[in-house]
């Protein structure tokens, strides 16, 4: 199996805090990877580094064999990585369908000038995630569940090969979790690779092929879900026992 | 040597001027473009009280501080509360407010420059150089002010609450911090500092209704160079600017005052937008 994404020795400091500490992991093609760890262990920072929102202090990142460690955010997106935000960030003065449409627009001045992209072209994307009835609503009118769907739709709109989903289940009802899980499974079947950050072990369990556990920015465990939950170090980390990593 | 002495004194004056602005911008994250006019009006208040009415300087100080606090709180109540989540609207409205206040002064008092007598007259010999006592006092006051600000923000309960609010509004709210009180405290302090600065700045240059632009831009340059979010950084930046300006005005050309501050500010923005001590934005 080819390695789609590879992270080597990634390190990031913020002032006096080490958010990510010499972290290395990879994602195989065709798998869903779970990224777990207690609050504040640096998971979102890992996403931010992959998406180039922050610059790492050391380490390299490879996507499809090419090094992306020094690219810009938009370059990484164009290469095929998309992400959703832990706290949804829709464009607040645009309706749901307009939000999706903006994501799907090409980054080319001439094409944008020609005004060729009607909103109707993006309804499939919206319906696919289950936002069909909410197209003309504004973000402040949407429920958390729908905002997360909107995040997914916007991520899908950039035609990614890899999607980074940050706490996609947070704040959702059991029904919504089931629906989003179904969406994720469908996308995997269509060929999308996914890394999910989540606290929700029950939601993650049926979805992920493999799990990577991070504690204080360091990798403390890696492997299939069933093994991870039995790992002593992982249990200690979640329960707050000192001296684990 | 003379350059050094004067630079230290100017740095002190600039720090005093920027202190109030730093409070609202670094801690409250809001740009109040009318800040310069508080200084201007406080200066006028001091002048009116001490030179037109002949009252003692203490009363003048009280008047200046009162004017600063009054204007600051009024701005907070009226403008900031209306445009709380829209920084663009805040600084557009405060700019308009500044110009309105400027026009009011021009109409009421006219735009002839007025001379404010120094708070303390006379000169003193420092390391063989003659310096005005007035500026010395300003400098000492600025140190007192900034150090007490630092103590306040880092050691007191309220001060830490304010810092928390500036870093993470939601987290602070959950912890039981009352944003209303925070806002009031910040703006009150800012106004008081503007009042004090007004008295000294007025005696440093002459009073005109247009004198609000310079303190505003200096304050802003100081915040940028020192780094947003850092009060100590602002202090250091004030001295950097003080040195740079004194060096150029005394050794190259008098008219370049102000230009140096801008040049440094632009350089910092281009090379190191965080400033020297700023937090990652």
């Amino acid at each position: 199996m080819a390695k789609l994404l590879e992270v080597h020795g990634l390190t990031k400091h913020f002032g006096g805090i080490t958010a990510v500490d010499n972290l290395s992991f990879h994602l195989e093609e065709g798998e869903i990877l779970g990224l777990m760890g207690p609050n504040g262990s640096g998971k979102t920072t890992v996403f931010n580094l992959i998406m180039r929102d922050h610059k790492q202090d050391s380490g390299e990142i490879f996507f499809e064999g090419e090094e992306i460690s020094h690219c810009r955010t938009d370059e990484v997106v164009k290469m095929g990585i998309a992400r959703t935000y832990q706290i949804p960030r829709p464009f607040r003065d645009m309706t749901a369908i307009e939000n999706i449409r903006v994501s799907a627009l090409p980054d080319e001045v001439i094409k944008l000038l020609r005004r060729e992209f009607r909103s109707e072209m993006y309804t499939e994307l919206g319906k696919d995630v289950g936002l069909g009835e909410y197209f003309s609503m504004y973000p402040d009118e949407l429920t958390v569940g729908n905002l997360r769907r909107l995040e997914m739709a916007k991520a899908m709109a950039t035609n990614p090969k890899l999607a980074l989903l940050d706490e996609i289940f947070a704040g959702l009802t059991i029904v919504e979790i089931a629906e989003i899980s179904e969406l994720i499974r469908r996308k995997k079947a269509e060929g999308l690779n996914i890394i999910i950050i989540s606290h929700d072990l029950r939601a993650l369990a049926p979805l992920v092929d493999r799990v990577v556990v991070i504690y204080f920015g360091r990798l403390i465990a890696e492997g299939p879900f069933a093994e991870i939950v039995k790992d002593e170090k992982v249990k200690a980390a979640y329960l707050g026992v000192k001296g684990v990593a | 040597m003379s350059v050094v002495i004067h630079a230290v004194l100017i740095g002190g004056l600039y720090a005093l001027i920027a202190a109030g602005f730093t409070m609202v911008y670094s801690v409250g994250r809001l740009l109040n473009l009318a800040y310069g006019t508080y200084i201007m009006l406080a200066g006028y208040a001091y002048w009116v009280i001490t030179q037109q009415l002949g009252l003692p300087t203490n009363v003048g100080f009280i008047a200046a501080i009162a004017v600063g606090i009054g204007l600051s709180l009024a701005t907070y109540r009226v403008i900031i509360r209306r445009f709380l989540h829209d920084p663009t609207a805040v600084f557009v409205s405060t700019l308009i407010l500044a110009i309105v206040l400027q026009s009011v002064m021009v109409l009421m008092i006219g735009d002839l420059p007025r001379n404010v007598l120094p708070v303390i007259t006379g000169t003193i010999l420092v390391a063989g150089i003659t310096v005005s006592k007035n500026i010395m006092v300003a400098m000492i006051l600025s140190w007192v002010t900034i150090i007490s600000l630092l103590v306040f923000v880092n050691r007191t309960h309220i001060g830490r609450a304010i810092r928390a609010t500036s870093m993470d509004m939601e987290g602070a709210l959950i912890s039981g911090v009352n944003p209303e009180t925070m806002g009031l405290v910040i703006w009150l302090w800012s106004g008081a500092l503007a009042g004090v600065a007004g008295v000294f700045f007025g005696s440093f240059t002459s009073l005109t209704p247009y004198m609000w632009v310079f303190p505003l831009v200096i304050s802003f340059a100081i915040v940028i160079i020192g780094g947003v979010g850092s009060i100590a950084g602002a202090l250091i930046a004030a001295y950097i600017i003080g040195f740079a300006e004194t060096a150029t005005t005394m050794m190259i050309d008098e008219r370049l005052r102000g230009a140096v501050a801008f040049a440094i500010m632009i350089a910092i923005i281009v090379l190191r937008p965080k400033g020297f001590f700023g937090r990652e934005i």
Partner: protein
Amino acid sequence: MIKSLLWWLIFIAVMCTLPLFLPSGILRFLVFANFVAIWAMSWDVLSGYTGYTSFGHPFLIGIAGYATAILAHEFGFPLYGSMALGVLAGVGAGMAFFFPALRVRGPYFALVTLALMDLAHRLVIAIRPDVTGGTRGITGLPLVVSGATPSFYMSLGVMFAIAIGLWFVTRSDIGTILRAIHMDEDALKTEGFSTLKYKLLAFLLSAVVASIGGVLYTHYLGTISPEGIFGIDMLFMILIAALIGGQNSIIGPIIGAYFIISLLQVSRPFLPGEERWLLYGAIALGVYFFRPTGFYGIATDIGSWYRERRRRKQYG
């Protein structure tokens, strides 16, 4: 799209007939209104759309104006040559100083541009006053047109061409992206957009338009002075025109410019001096508080309210 073009045609047709029945005094201040409209639109395409509020447009206008004035007056350049170079100078200075400031966000950018404007003001007075004319400025410049009516048509034509051009660009998805930059620039990058590209585009449009206005205005008045062009008055007028008229719309600034200049004229006999700024400031604050989207925003609100009412009547 076609409907809007119709409105534009009606507008220009009406405006063209004005010289037939308006005295030249009024025409002259309409010329000024057209220039303010040009500058307010240039402000809007950058600041109204991307949210990078600029307080330094007089910097661009003034550099362009002074460049053409100096070239024409000191070095005897032919008129159209110096104007073209003036525009280049304005855009060039903008790229060198204004544009790098776009790396930083909102308030930083605004105050840096304000500082640039103030800096230009001081430098023009202090450096080589023999060339720049110091505080008095330069007079006796060649005129591009003379007479009230030709000036009116010239300014109207330029304003209209610029309006159509900017309107076309901002109504396209370029405008959508610019607005998205205002809403959340980082999220937009995550959607795969190189936001620098669009900021550059908006800036270039803004700088070119402002500079064109600057050179034409200089050669309409025949003079240029530091206070007139780098003064807070000029900044204030442009800002208020764009804000009262309605930012983020291109049309709003035109409305605002005409409104504010008409107000200037009407109030001149009663409030000759500084009081006018007090009045404008108060009105600007008032309108802004009530409807930050300005007159244009009020007009579109009325329009949608009216359409909503008709729709309800139709469907019961």
